[in-house]
């Protein structure tokens, strides 16, 4: 007996990849189409609904282990969402030069207290450039 794997992968809306390992007698070639696997998997889940519960439980546990930085397939964001997020970032950047921000920066500049140390910054910079 050997294990045969499906040659096609199933693409689902939730990006779940299903590979079916099926023991088949030797010398017999089986090829399952993705539709057949999908149907079989559907039947299997209908008969064993607790499996999906286990899958979700494992995914949640795995996600907690690897931390929030890595995104599980369940929360993978679409390209469109990424574009929207980048546009939102751009909008935020534009707001940086609003009159309110200019006023805020001017106030910071006016209220900032320089350090009272005896130094000639031009000479010091020259030394740094010459000597590293």
């Amino acid at each position, binding site marked *: 007996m050997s294990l045969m794997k499906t040659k096609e992968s199933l693409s689902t809306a939730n990006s779940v990849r299903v590979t079916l390992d099926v023991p088949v007698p030797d010398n017999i070639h089986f090829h399952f189409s993705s539709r057949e696997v999908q149907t079989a998997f559907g039947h299997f889940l209908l008969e064993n609904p607790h499996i999906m519960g286990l899958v979700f439980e494992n995914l949640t546990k795995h996600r907690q282990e690897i931390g929030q930085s890595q995104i599980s397939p369940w929360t993978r964001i679409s390209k469109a969402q990424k574009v929207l997020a980048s546009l939102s970032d751009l909008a935020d950047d534009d707001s940086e030069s609003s009159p309110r921000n200019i006023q805020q920066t001017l106030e910071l*500049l006016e209220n900032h207290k320089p350090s009272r140390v005896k130094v000639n910054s031009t000479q010091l910079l020259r030394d740094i450039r010459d000597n590293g």
Partner: protein
Amino acid sequence: MDNNNKLYVVDTSVTAKLFLVEEQSEEAKQIYRQATRQEIMLLAPELTCYELISVLTQADMPLSEVKEHLLLFEKLVKDEAAKTKGPGSN
């Protein structure tokens, strides 16, 4: 920002005067005031950040003050009072 605004390349020695009490500190501040109001544009090489850190840390001041100065400089760059440009940037 008005495209007709004059563009100046600012040296680190000018920027450093913002954070130190010395001759021409007021003039340096005036340059940055104008840039913040977007009356002029300032461009600084990316190296300015590193040179500024060197000057401030070697100027014998508490690190807390260095941090405050760098935070203001970061704010100025963020608000485009001064733009820093490296060799590879557009």
